[in-house]
């Protein structure tokens, strides 16, 4: 199965019944497969005129009660940012897949990169929080997609699946039954709909979302709004709203973050990487281990919010930390924020449209430590 295909399988398993998108390499297979599969499960596929409209359509579908998704790559992700902000502000659950290719702009359409790490966090304007997940295998793409829907429903937020061309187009042997029963979070409609307040902190920092058409009338806006959803310029309400939008994710971080660790628990080198790059890092780890180095790997699956609590616990036991990513250094800044000891975090970067080889990583590590740690 292909990575992009696993996303569609995961989405349908999670209950996605609406997809709107504008095809773009290397995410096109997601649109193709949604067009093919959704009608068979009673879902709808719409090809929109562009990515701005795609994002608007999934917000509308979600407010009308369907789990909705769109997929794109860097150039389209840029266009989606305005409405991603709207979904964050109006607290509309939805899933956006960004299969990263090399940029900026149209860049190299068929070549991999991981240059959208910061865009996925801060691409839309204003203070907000967001959840971003990055799978490193086809199997994990399936699992992560289900969790993306769950988290988006639980916290009423857009969730970004930050893939890259390598994982999107990779075909791997997978057994989806391995995961067994995965909990699927559905929307709960409260009994008391008379006094429904769509923007009140009731559970997990949010109110349950009652879809339009279920007998409740309320207002949805990108303007600052009160608990009823009506616009206001009241600074106290604005303060409370923005704080809640950020806190509902940051304060529930331990429930949201996923990560994997591999190799030694203490030693010489700690690698931090995500997505496809971590596959090259794992192969590099095997090489370095053969040469006698003690190496550990920390791989955040949840990139935003960053699993800093865990990293803080493990990093002091290593002499040097390397952040490996297919960009000029983006997650590096987040790791550097967490690791406060100067000179300890180094970055290994590649941004030429070519995937890392394990050998390159090994060589770069050796060069950096040739004068000792």
């Amino acid at each position, binding site marked *: 199965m292909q990575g992009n295909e696993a996303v569609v399988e995961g989405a349908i398993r999670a209950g996605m019944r609406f997809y709107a998108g504008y095809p773009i390499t290397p995410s096109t297979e997601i649109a193709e497969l949604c067009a093919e599969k959704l009608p068979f499960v009673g879902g709808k596929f719409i090809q929109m005129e562009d990515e701005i409209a795609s994002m608007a359509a999934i917000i509308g579908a979600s407010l009308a009660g369907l789990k909705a998704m769109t997929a794109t790559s860097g150039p389209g992700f840029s266009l989606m940012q305005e409405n991603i902000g709207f979904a964050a502000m109006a607290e509309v659950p939805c899933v956006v897949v960004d299969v990263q290719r090399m940029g900026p702009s149209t860049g190299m*359409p*068929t070549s991999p990169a991981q240059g959208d790490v910061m865009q996925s966090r801060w691409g839309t304007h204003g203070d907000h929080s967001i959840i971003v997940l990055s799978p490193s295998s086809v199997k994990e793409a399936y699992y992560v997609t289900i969790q993306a829907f769950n988290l988006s429903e639980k916290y009423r937020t857009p969730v970004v699946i930050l893939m890259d061309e390598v994982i999107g187009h990779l075909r791997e*042997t997978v057994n989806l039954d391995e995961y067994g029963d995965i909990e699927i979070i559905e929307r709960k409609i409260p009994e008391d709909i008379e006094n429904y307040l769509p923007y009140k902190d009731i559970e997990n920092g949010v109110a349950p979302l009652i879809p339009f058409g279920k007998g409740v009338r309320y207002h949805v806006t990108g303007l600052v709004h009160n608990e009823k959803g009506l616009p206001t310029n009241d600074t106290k309400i604005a303060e409370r709203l923005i704080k809640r939008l950020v806190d509902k994710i940051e304060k529930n971080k331990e429930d949201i973050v996923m990560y994997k660790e591999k190799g030694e628990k203490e030693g010489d080198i700690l690698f931090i990487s995500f997505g496809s790059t971590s596959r090259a890092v794992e*192969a590099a780890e095997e090489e370095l281990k053969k040469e006698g180095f003690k190496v550990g790997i920390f791989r955040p699956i949840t990139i935003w919010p960053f699993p800093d609590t865990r990293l803080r616990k493990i990093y002091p036991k290593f002499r040097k930390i390397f952040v490996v990513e297919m960009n000029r250094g983006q997650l590096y800044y987040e790791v550097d924020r967490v690791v406060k000891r100067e000179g300890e975090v180094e970055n290994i970067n590649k941004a030429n449209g070519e*995937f890392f080889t394990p050998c390159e990583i090994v060589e770069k590590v050796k060069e950096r430590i040739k004068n000792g740690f």
Partner: protein
Amino acid sequence: MRSLEIRLGGSGGQGLILAGIILAEAAILDGKVSVQSQSYGPEARGGSSKAEVIISDGPIVYPKVLKPDVLLALTSSAYKSYKEDVKETGLIIVDDSVEVEKESKVKTLKFPILRTAQEVVGKAYVANIVSLGVIAELTKIVSEESLEKAVLKRVPAGTEELNRKALEEGFKLGKVEDKWVEQMI
């Protein structure tokens, strides 16, 4: 753990990515673990195209091919670009339209793949399936039964007979007496 790396190179439109998918799926039918990846230019036809397959007895960590055990090159440019990467113990299979270096460190075999597809099978576009027949016959990296099943599962409805013939012709081409091939297996 044994792991074999295969790279298929040619030009866009020759169906090599599909061939890679079929090869990987045949390996799964044989009970192996496989990954398939690809790289190609932005154009739909005519640009360079590369498909890669790794077949292994166990989990595959790094998903791309670094040093192929087998290289298929249907064009001169694919041959030139990738021949240096092939393992010294490996095998290069080229279409007979490709001019090869006389003194190659790596065993290199030429077959009339494109011609067989066009003239014997009757359709140029089955060159990818002819190639798979040649590779399987020479290297035994997948069983003939699994390969046939995998081909028939992936090709468009109505072209089964054509593709079965292409595969047969590939098997025939690949039947060469060669001690080296046995060593590799």
